[in-house]
């Protein structure tokens, strides 16, 4: 014999939605929580197929698993993450309540098959908290990424500036050397009236080629001019 709705009155005292189904999907019990959530009063639900009341449950992903439970199979869990909701139960905003649902088989009297006890938890608030947490985390991660990018850019600029300064310092050093050389060559040079050696700033006498080579980087090649040839080699 199939039990009546009174047999399940205990389920009025649980803080969840609760429905009991016969093995042909007929609703045997529909608690007040579900009346509030779905707007379907108990009188309208009892004796009708849950597949009529909630046509979404006729989809194979629900119906096949409900069928398994009603044939004595293991309990079935329907998570909010993968299904969103089990029964259509809108909030005042029109948004559907997200639900975590467990369906367990209850052996009925001999010959009456298996009943299915469906317990539905409203996890909308939990989901909202998680969504808020995820949004906060995404924002924090985005800020960290922006900061990292800015720091990398700053580091690149600093390196570039450092390289430019180093380059300028080299140029400045070269310029200074050149200025020193020009200063050395542009002043008054003491030169021997006979051998033409030049006296440097430390008092040493250097051949003119060596002195100019050292201070101006000029290289010399030696030859004999026609006048000197005549003067020194005319006897050859």
């Amino acid at each position, binding site marked *: 014999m199939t039990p009546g709705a009174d047999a399940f009155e205990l389920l009025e005292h649980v803080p969840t939605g609760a429905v009991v189904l016969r093995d042909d999907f007929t609703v045997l019990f529909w608690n007040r929580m579900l009346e509030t959530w779905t707007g379907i009063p108990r009188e309208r639900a009892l004796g009708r197929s849950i597949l009529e009341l909630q046509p979404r449950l006729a989809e194979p992903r629900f119906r096949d698993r409900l069928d398994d439970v009603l044939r004595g199979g293991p309990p079935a*869990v329907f998570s909010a993450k993968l299904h969103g909701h089990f029964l259509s139960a809108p909030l005042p905003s029109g948004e559907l309540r997200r639900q975590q649902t467990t369906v367990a088989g209850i052996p009925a009297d001999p010959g009456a098959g298996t009943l299915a006890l469906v317990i539905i938890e409203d996890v909308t608030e939990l989901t909202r908290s998680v969504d808020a947490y995820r949004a906060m985390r995404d924002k924090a991660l985005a800020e960290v990424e922006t900061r990292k990018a800015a720091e990398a850019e700053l580091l690149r600029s600093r390196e570039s500036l450092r390289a430019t300064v180093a380059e300028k310092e080299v140029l400045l050093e070269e310029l200074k050397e050149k200025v020193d050389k020009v200063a050395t060559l542009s002043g008054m040079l003491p030169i021997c009236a006979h051998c033409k050696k030049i006296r440097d700033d430390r008092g040493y006498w250097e051949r003119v080629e060596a002195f100019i080579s050292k201070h101006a980087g000029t290289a010399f090649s030696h030859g004999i001019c026609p006048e000197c040839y005549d003067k020194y080699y005319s006897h050859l």
Partner: protein
Amino acid sequence: MMALDALQADALREIINIGVGRAASMLNSIVKAHIQLRIPEIQVVAPDGVRELLAERRRHRLSVVRLPFRGRFSGAAELVFPEESAAKLVSVLASEDELPLDADGARSAALTEVGNILLNGVMGSFANLLKQPLRYAVPVYSEFGKDAGGVLPEMDATTAVVFAQIHFHVHELHVVGDIILVFGTGSFDALVESIGAYVRELS
């Protein structure tokens, strides 16, 4: 403890594979993604053996969905994943970015559902093919640290464990977990007898 002969071992593999195949098609219809499930090997081991096998997995925190069952053979069916793999799997199935499971109760609930579908497929296959009705408790999700015990239910020397590695392929993700069926005292012998009857019926 009775041992399975070659034909019975084949039948055990077939029963588990039929259940897993059924679970795969159910998962495919739920998440609208192509999920492939593969069981490359199945072993029957004594409690010490399963502890050794599990020790290799204990380098990670583990996510476990447990489905206790009672009947001619009693025990518990478990789906065990490294926690990180479990979080990735749920993220792919729910098509969203990854969060640690403990940051989101809804995620562990989703993993409970995945385990529920898989273990129901396997246990349903045992019950239907071996014609042995079983009673079940509601599946429970737990997490275990690297050094904590409790991944397996209490076992004694007469307990037998069927250990099946399961490979999930979905999109680019490849996740490996374990299906562990723990049969209490005397239950494995009853299972072997039932499998023997099933094999005789087939031949």
